C-alpha cells in the first residue's frame, strides 16, 4: 500500500509529456490522404459505387426492356448513351452492369481473401508438415492456367453471376495465402507471441487476434489488387459468354454484345462507355492499392 501512495504522488507531476494516442490505422489514413493518385482513385471508385447504387432507384429507363422502335439510336436526351442493337437503353445497362461488376469484385475478393488468410495462416502458424501440404496445394493451384479451369468450372456448374463469383473467388486465393503464410512465419517467431503463450492464451485467439492484425497491411494491399483482377476476369469471362449471362448486364457482356464490325464502326456508344468504365474502375482500384501499400508500410514515414 505504501507503493500505491508513492505512485499517487508522482502521478500529479507527469501529464504534459504524454503522446496523444494515435493508432496505426489513423496514422496510415493520414499518409494515405497525402497520396494524390490514391485519393483520386478513391474518389473515382466512390463515384462509380454511388452511381451504380443510387441511379437505378430513380432511373425510369429499363435495362431489360426491348424497344424495337428505338434500335441502335445515338445518344440523346431520352437515352443519354443511346440504345443498343435490340433497343435497350445503354446508360441503364451500364449502371446496372456496374453493380454486377463491383459485386463480382467485392464478393470474389471476400471469398479468395478468406480462403487465403485461413489456409496461409494455418500453414504459417503450424509449420512443418501442415505447412508443406497446404503450400504444395497452393503451388499446384498456381500451376494451372486459371482461365482454362474457370472455363471448365463454369461449363460444369453452368454460367451465371453466382458461379462466376464462385469460380473467381475459389481460384484467386493463392497469392493471398502465400503472403499470409510469409507474414505468419515471421510473426510467430517474435517474442510477443511467446509472451502470449506464456500468458496461457488459446491458440485460436493468438492466431486471429494477435498475429492476424499484424499481418493485415500486406493482405489488404493484395486484396485490393485482387479486386482489380477479379473485375477484369469477370469482364473477360462475360465477353467470352462464360460469365454473367444476358439479359443481366455486366460491363464484360456489354463488350461481348458489341463484337461485330458494324457495331464497332457505327455504334461506338454501345462499347466505349463499358470499356471506359472497366478501365476507370480497375485503374482506380489499382491506385488505391498503391496508396494503401505506401500508407500501410510501417517503414515509410512520410
Amino acid at each position, binding site marked *: *500500500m*505504501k*507503493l*500505491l501512495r*508513492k*505512485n*499517487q504522488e*508522482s*502521478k500529479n*507531476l*507527469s*501529464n504534459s509529456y*504524454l*503522446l496523444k*494516442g494515435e*493508432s*496505426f490505422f489513423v496514422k496510415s489514413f493520414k499518409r494515405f490522404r497525402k497520396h494524390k493518385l490514391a485519393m483520386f482513385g478513391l474518389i473515382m471508385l466512390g463515384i462509380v459505387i454511388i452511381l451504380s447504387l443510387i441511379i437505378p432507384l430513380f432511373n425510369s429507363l429499363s435495362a431489360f426492356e426491348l424497344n424495337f422502335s428505338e434500335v441502335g439510336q445515338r445518344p440523346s436526351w431520352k437515352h443519354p448513351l443511346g440504345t443498343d442493337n435490340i433497343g435497350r437503353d445503354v446508360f441503364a445497362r451500364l449502371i446496372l452492369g456496374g453493380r454486377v461488376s463491383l459485386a463480382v469484385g467485392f464478393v470474389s475478393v471476400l471469398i479468395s481473401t478468406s480462403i487465403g488468410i485461413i489456409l496461409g495462416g494455418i500453414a504459417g502458424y503450424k509449420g512443418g508438415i501442415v505447412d508443406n501440404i497446404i503450400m504444395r496445394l497452393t503451388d499446384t493451384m498456381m500451376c494451372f492456367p486459371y482461365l482454362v479451369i474457370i472455363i471448365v468450372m463454369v461449363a460444369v456448374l453452368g454460367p451465371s453471376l453466382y458461379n462466376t463469383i464462385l469460380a473467381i473467388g475459389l481460384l484467386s486465393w493463392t497469392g493471398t495465402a502465400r503472403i499470409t503464410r510469409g507474414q505468419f512465419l515471421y510473426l510467430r517467431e*517474435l*517474442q*510477443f507471441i*511467446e*509472451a*502470449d*503463450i*506464456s*500468458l*496461457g*492464451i*488459446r491458440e485460436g*485467439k493468438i492466431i486471429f487476434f*494477435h498475429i492476424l*492484425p*499484424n499481418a*493485415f497491411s500486406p493482405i489488404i494491399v493484395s486484396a485490393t489488387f485482387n479486386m482489380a483482377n477479379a473485375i477484369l476476369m469477370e469482364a473477360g469471362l462475360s465477353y467470352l459468354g462464360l460469365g454473367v449471362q444476358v439479359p443481366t448486364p455486366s460491363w464484360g457482356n456489354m463488350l461481348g454484345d458489341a463484337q461485330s464490325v458494324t457495331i464497332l464502326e457505327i455504334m461506338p456508344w454501345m462499347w466505349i462507355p463499358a470499356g471506359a468504365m472497366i478501365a476507370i474502375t480497375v485503374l482506380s482500384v489499382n491506385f488505391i492499392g498503391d496508396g494503401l501499400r505506401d500508407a500501410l508500410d510501417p517503414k515509410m514515414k512520410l
Partner: protein
Amino acid sequence: MPVLLKVKNLKVHFETYEEYIYAVNGISYTLNSGETIGIVGESGCGKTVSIMSLLRLIDMPPGKIVSGTAIFEGKDLLSIPQKELQKIRGNKIGVIFQDPMTAFNQVMTIGDQLIEGLIEHKGMSKKKALEEAKRLLDIVGIANPRERLRDYPFQFSGGMRQRVMIAIGLICQPKIIIADEPTTALDVTIQAQIIDLIKQIREEFGTSIIWVTHDLGVVAGIADKVMVIYGGYIIEEAPVDMLYNNPKHPYTRGLLASLPKIEGNDRKRLDYISGQPPYLNKLPKGCPFEPRCSYRIEKCAQENPMLTIRNIEGNHRVACWLGLE
C-alpha cells in the same frame, strides 16, 4: 517455508538436422514459496532453456524434454497435457521477458494486452478486467493509468514497457514469476528502479521469483539463493551471502574475481577466465569446466563431478572434485 516447485533431473536437448545439442543436462532444485532464486551463468549455458522448458515455451521440435519432473501443486508441469498447462501459464506462473521492446503486440493497446489473462483465466468481464488492469498499472508506477490503458506500446519508453510487462506478468497474481533477464535491456538507473519495484511487489504479494541473469550484481541484490549454471549443469548452489563470501567452485570464483570492485584503489586489470564455454554438441567425459580450470587434477578429465553434486555445510551444494576452502 513450504516447497512450491520441485524440479528434478531436468534434461532438455535440441535436435536439428546438423547436430544434437545437450542444452540442459539434469538439473534439480526446489523453490520455496516466497523465495527468490537467482540463476546465473554465461551466454549459452542453458539458463533460459532450463526455466522456459518448465512452461514448454521452447520450440518443440527441435527442442525436447528428455527427462525430468517439475512438481507444482501436485502436478508434473512437464507431463500434464497442453490444455492443463495453458491454465497454469500466466495464471499460476507468470513470465517477464528480457526485451520489453519486442514482447508487446504493436497493434494492440496496452489495456487489451493486460486484460487478456484475466479474461482467459478468471473469466472476468472486460469492464472489471480493465479496472483491475488500471490498479496494476498504478502499482507498477505508471502515471495516469486509466488514460494509458488506451495507449499503444510504442508510446511507452523502455523502462515503462518493462513496468507494464511486470504488470502483465502479475495480473493474475501468480504464485511464481519467471523473470528471464528482465533488466538486461535496460540502462542501470532503470535497472535499479525495476529491481526495487520487483522487491516491493514480492513483499506485497508474497510471490516466488526465479530470476535468470548473467549479472552477478543484480542477483546479489535480489536473490535468496543463487544457482550457478555451466554447460547445462548446476555447478554450485548456495544462499546468496554464502556464495558471494565463500564460493567453492573454481568457476564461481573466476566469475566473482572478474567483477570490478568499488572498494580499493588498485587499478589493475580485471581477472578473467581464459577459454570459451563448451559447445554443447557432445557431453563431456569429465568435468565440462576442466579445460578452463586452473585447479584441475587428473580425475577432472576422467569423471564428471556434475552427476554427483555434493552437499557441503547445509545448503551449499557444489559439483567439484576438489574441496576448495
